[in-house]
């Protein structure tokens, strides 16, 4: 037995550290899960730390000494038969503990200084305001100008944000100092601390921190600044003492003010980037597969694993022998504890597996509540036979797991988690009577978990067409056409009309019906019409395309389509086709009975299907985006696929006469491919549907939706601006603003519109409703009765507005018509300048290009009566629009 050969194995992979990138709300569920679990348990930090205990070391030594006939021995004979090698970044969440301190110091007679500091690294912001003498209630006010330190930013009319500065380079202490002039009428200073890196807020006993400067400040239990001598942190909750009482009978209120210094514990979740490196070799003598797993994760690491055989990716239990410290877990998986490296910074393990096995699946377990996987999937190590592919080093090699097995594992994991959580709750309750924060955290974490789960369920439900299972979709013989179109920027003066709703296929003659409306739509002022998907489709609405070259659909025949396009061209309206490029329904089953072979003119095989949707057994590469689960997702990384799609788009341009595209579900593939398609088909106008969820905290929409619009802008960027995108952000914010009378949401901190239109107006296609969000599906319906406010917004603002068919043929018609004619008359366009003049609780007002003024909301606003002469152009319930005459 020799351990020598292990050493090179241990060091063959310089640990790659991936940079910490904040992905915002798209962060994989893995991170959220870890965040959740580690946050809820104070014991996590401890258990990781305790991994270094002596006991463990001793054990690990013992293992090495006694290791006999399994893994280690066999590695001695191995040569270069590396069959798999991969390094996977993993992110773990640790809890860092530190303190917040608050110091009140006297500088001169009436000049005092309040310092707030924090010992943890981070991008700390003090979010603060004051209460004036005579204020009642818990509201904040803006402090006087002279109190604001340099670099402060006003938030609305009630708060200031001041960043904390590093005390010294290389030190993690951050601090901010506010000068107080006691001659002002400030009665108290309120603040909370915010970490911009994580978006987390830190409060004091669940409330604002409140530093009283007078002795009659009402005590809501959140005052700080007390008598000296309260060093014990655990007692902080009991130390609320009003200054007045500590000053011996002074008559002047301010005299009660005393210097103080207080510390409070704070904890923050810091993500650590580690990696797992996996190497599989074939032992030439025994032909066994030797897998080495090593990681730089600190503490105990347990590998929760199983093997795959017979072509299925199901977890199975291999025959013995197992590595040391291996236990059977519920007959579903094995658990092997990794051995500590001698250097102390990580662990490793060797697994010797039968040659016939096809692969090894595993996840890592750090403790009861922390599991790590490979970006949401199990780690998978394929044992390729000598005849198959050469060595792969990419992480992409790791492919999907069997959903079923995974489900089982995670389910029991879930139940275990809840139990552990409750136990800990009980323990915490009994052991820390006063540490209320624990309980609160558990509670908040339960809420977060609920929201996370709901979001997960939502994203899946939303992306599937519930009526069709993949099987039934593919079996159905129904001929449904399907096409999507998107557009770029056109002239800049475009106004889009979505020319159908979810029911339009029902008449069977939609194209003809639309033709009859051509003159009417043109006279209303539309310049672009978005037609429904034209191809054969297994769902009548057209979004499950099958044969892309068959343009006979429930909306009509190819000839009727061509006629329609011609008709609209005649009245000067450009026409967009709805192109569904993400997925395509197959014509035939493969040998396993899975539908992934296509027919028709584009008779692709399973190489055209992405590999990471287990339902369709694609042989392509992993998807470059999100998967749509109801049909095979097309692998756009294949040259032949891209070539065919480009050809098809060009054919549609020529044959049908489409001017551009509305692109369906572009989250499903990389925007770079869209650029390729746009370059080839040269649309006049193109717009992509990039729809994901906005950020919510505790069910309430966040004010700052920058992460959301960033994702859309990122997509537009990936297309090099060749296509615009629907401004989902603006729609979402309008929902919240109108529904709850929170019009302040309509201005971002920089005073710009808060949606995509605020950042990249020429590529933003603003809308308030479409066939998915409204119509008879109603997945995300615009607040009822407030549609006209929405249109008053998008039809006066920059961006390219899109009007939904149902609204044109509703009671709103005449009001919409007036707004359309105003937009055309005043020549507002997608790059118009918008100047937000009011964004308050109940009213939002803006002036666009200095010639159109608008307000929405019940509140009052009138444009300034200056040099310009404003006259009312359109007016309706809770909105008003003026123009200069």
């Amino acid at each position, binding site marked *: 037995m020799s351990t020598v050969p292990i050493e090179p194995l241990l060091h063959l992979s310089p640990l790659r550290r991936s940079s910490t990138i904040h992905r915002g709300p798209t962060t994989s569920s893995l991170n959220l899960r870890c965040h959740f679990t580690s946050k809820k348990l104070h014991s996590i930090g401890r258990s990781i730390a305790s991994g270094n205990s002596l006991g463990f070391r001793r054990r690990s030594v013992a293992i090495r000494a006694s290791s006999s006939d399994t893994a280690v021995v066999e590695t001695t004979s191995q040569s270069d038969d590396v069959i798999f090698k991969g390094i996977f970044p993993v992110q773990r969440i640790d809890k860092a503990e530190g303190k917040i301190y608050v110091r009140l110091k006297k500088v001169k007679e009436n000049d005092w200084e309040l310092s707030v500091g924090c010992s943890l690294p981070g991008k700390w912001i003090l979010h603060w305001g004051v209460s004036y003498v005579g204020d009642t209630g818990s509201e904040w006010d803006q402090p006087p100008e002279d109190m604001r330190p340099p670099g402060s930013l006003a938030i609305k009319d009630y708060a200031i944000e001041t960043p904390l500065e590093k005390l010294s380079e290389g030190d993690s202490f951050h601090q901010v100092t506010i000068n107080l002039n006691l001659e002002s009428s400030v009665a108290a200073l309120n603040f909370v601390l915010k970490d911009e890196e994580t978006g987390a807020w830190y409060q004091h006993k669940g409330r604002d921190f409140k530093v009283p400067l007078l002795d009659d400040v009402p005590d809501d239990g959140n005052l700080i600044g007390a008598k000296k001598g309260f060093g014990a942190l655990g007692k902080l909750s009991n130390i609320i003492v009003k200054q007045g009482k500590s000053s011996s009978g002074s008559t002047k209120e301010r005299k009660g003010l005393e210097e103080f210094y207080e510390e409070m514990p704070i904890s923050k979740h810091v993500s650590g980037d580690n990696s797992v490196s996996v190497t599989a070799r074939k032992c030439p003598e025994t032909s066994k597969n030797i897998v080495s797993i090593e990681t730089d994760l600190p503490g105990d690491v347990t590998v929760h694993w199983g093997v795959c055989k017979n072509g299925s990716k199901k977890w199975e239990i291999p025959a013995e022998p197992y590595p040391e410290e291996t236990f059977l877990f519920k007959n579903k998986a094995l658990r092997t504890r990794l051995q500590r490296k001698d250097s102390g910074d990580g662990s490793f393990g060797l697994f010797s597996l039968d040659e016939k096995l096809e692969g090894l699946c595993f996840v890592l377990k750090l403790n009861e509540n922390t599991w790590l996987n490979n970006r949401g999937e199990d780690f998978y190590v394929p044992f390729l036979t000598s005849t198959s592919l050469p060595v792969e080093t990419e992480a992409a090699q790791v492919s999907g797991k069997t959903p079923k097995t995974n489900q089982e594992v995670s389910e029991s994991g879930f139940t275990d988690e809840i139990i552990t959580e409750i136990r800990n709750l009980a323990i915490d309750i009994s052991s820390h009577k006063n540490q209320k924060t624990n309980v609160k955290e558990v509670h908040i974490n339960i809420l977060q978990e609920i929201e996370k789960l709901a979001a997960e369920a939502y994203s899946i439900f939303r992306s*599937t067409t519930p009526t069709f299972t993949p099987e039934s979709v593919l079996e159905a013989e129904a001929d449904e056409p399907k096409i999507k179109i998107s557009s770029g920027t056109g002239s800049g003066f475009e106004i889009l009309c979505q020319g159908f709703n979810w029911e339009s296929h029902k008449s069977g003659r939609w194209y003809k019906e639309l033709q009859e409306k051509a003159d009417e739509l043109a006279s209303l002022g539309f310049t672009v019409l978005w037609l429904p998907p034209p191809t054969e489709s297994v769902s009548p609405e057209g979004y499950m395309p099958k044969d892309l070259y068959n343009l006979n659909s429930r909306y009509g025949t190819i000839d009727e389509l061509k006629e329609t396009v011609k008709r609209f061209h005649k009245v000067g309206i450009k026409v967009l086709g709805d192109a569904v490029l993400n997925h395509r329904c197959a014509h035939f089953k493969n040998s396993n009975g899975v539908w992934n072979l296509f027919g028709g003119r584009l008779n692709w095989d399973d190489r055209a299907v992405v590999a990471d949707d287990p339902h369709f057994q694609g042989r392509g590469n992993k998807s470059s985006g999100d998967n749509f689960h109801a049909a095979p997702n097309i692998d756009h990384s294949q040259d032949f696929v891209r070539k065919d799609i480009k050809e098809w788009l060009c054919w549609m341009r020529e044959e049908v006469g489409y001017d551009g595209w509305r692109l369906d579900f572009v989250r499903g593939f990389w925007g770079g491919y869209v650029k390729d398609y746009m370059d080839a088909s040269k649309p006049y106008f193109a717009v992509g549907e990039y729809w994901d969820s906005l950020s919510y905290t505790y069910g309430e929409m966040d004010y700052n939706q920058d992460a959301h619009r960033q994702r859309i802008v990122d997509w537009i960027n990936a297309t090099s601006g060749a296509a615009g995108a629907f401004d989902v952000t603006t729609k979402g914010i309008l929902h919240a603003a109108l529904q709850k009378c929170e019009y302040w949401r309509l201005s971002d901190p920089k005073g710009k519109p808060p949606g995509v239109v605020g950042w990249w107006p020429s590529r933003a296609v603003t809308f308030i409703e479409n066939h998915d969000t409204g119509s008879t599906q109603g997945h995300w319906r615009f607040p009822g009765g407030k549609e006209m406010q929405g249109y008053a917004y998008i039809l006066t603002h920059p961006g390219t507005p899109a009007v939904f068919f149902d609204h044109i043929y509703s009671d709103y018609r005449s009001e919409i018509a007036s707004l359309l004619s105003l937009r055309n008359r005043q020549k507002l366009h997608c790059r118009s300048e918008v100047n937000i003049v009011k964004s308050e609780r109940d009213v939002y007002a803006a002036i666009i290009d200095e010639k159109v003024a608008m307000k929405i909301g019940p509140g009052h606003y009138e444009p300034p009566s200056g040099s310009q002469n404003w006259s009312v152009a359109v007016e309706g319930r809770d909105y008003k629009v003026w123009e200069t005459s």
Partner: protein
Amino acid sequence: MEVSVIGNPQAKICRAELSFRELGFRLGSGESRNKVCFLTHQSSKWKEIRIRCSPRSVKCEAIVSDQAPFLKPTPNPRSQLESVKLFVGLPLDTVSDCNNVNHMKAITAGLKALKLLGVEGVELPVFWGVVEREAAGKYEWSGYLAVAEIVKKVGLKLQVSLSFHGSKDPEIGLPDWVAKIGEGEPGMYFTDRYGKQYKDCLSFGVDDVPVLDGKTPMEVYGGFCESFKSAFSDYMGNTITGITLGMGPAGELRYPSHQHETKPSGAGEFQCYDKHMLSALKHYAESSGNPLWGLGGPHDAPAYDQQPHSTSFFSDGGSWESQYGDFFLTWYSSLLTSHADRVLSVASSAFGGSGVSVSGKLPLLHQWNKLRSQPSELTAGFYSSNGHDRYEAIAEIFAKNSCRMIIPGMDLSDEHQSLASLSSPESLLGNIKTSCKKQGVVVSGQNSSASVPGGFERIVENLKDESVGIDLFTYQRMGALFFSPEHFHAFTVFVRNMNQVELSSYDQAGEDEAQTVSLGSGTGAHSLQTA
């Protein structure tokens, strides 16, 4: 031992908002079990919701038993609402017709979320056309068993709806073999005046006619129930706490008189034109001495989406009030009543003693119910001569079979109905509840859909109503809309509100009683007003 935490759940610190809610935890004080209380602070009024978290139930969780969820409202001895168990319906297409579980991942995540929220369980629609799809007596339960297992693992309860009807959206038909028989035996489907068949449900006229390979539909339904019972024997009485029997179109006890769900504006049509019902009508007419009345249904009834008063049948003094009208409607409604009796007897004989409750669902036909004739109810089969309560006979059947009654539409309020529809869901609901109370039938509630304006508030009010103790409510239905951030948030608030109301109703018992009274009188006044 007492721990109290006050937390502001609003990460944003917005001033001057009512949103200054506070949530907190308090942990039991000096009692033998730990209690966790959420404290909600709105303006200056404190409301309290209690959540019991006894070490015992924790232990039960550990062995993945079906014990109560750990977040559960503590019974409030003085509140009617204390024991309302909240269920959420699973998607209709949870199991595909190939017996696969659809959106497994989404459902699993959804179930966990519901469990954490403290929801009691879920309702699972089981379709005849999925389970006994291929051949008579060949049952395939695997898909539904898989769902039951997940539900059990997550620790939720299950209400199963055995559906002997088909669905348009998602498209689930009757079993293939039944459809095949139907091609040669068109008389087994409901048929309207123009001979159009309704193929999503068998006609009440063939209940006891051996049309299905020598068996009557009732025998086939019975066999289905027995097979279900043995296939799910491990779950009965523990995970599965209730069974609902499908009684007609969409599972509801009614004739398919309204077939265009999106356009419920008309009066609906009588469905008595299949072979079997026509011959029964003929027979009945002859035996009552008016053979000419048995030649067909009313000739002057309006079509599905015609206004009730567009023809003479439903107008004041119209045919419905004539002797002929009474003759026809009595017969038409008696078939509905006897159908109810047959189905419920099948159910109670199959499931009696297996530890589950059995229920059947009524429709809430509120369209046009401010008209004296109440045409929607008449075409659907609810009638009583002499102006007696139209629901009493039905409630009696439920009582006789010891079945619970599910009433939908608890989210509908009068103020949101269009004036033109002359509709009052609230008073109709009151009527049915009164009948149930008279007959001692236990009522469960359902909502009509997830997007009714003011729906949640209305549901809470209905559940608060102490005149009929509703102890089970099923919220319809899980899916994309249900989990959309806006709806799900509202649902979360609803779940918490139910508990809050519990307490405020306790605080304001007097007010609640007053509401009950006014509801009662409103019901009484109703028939006068509509004159």
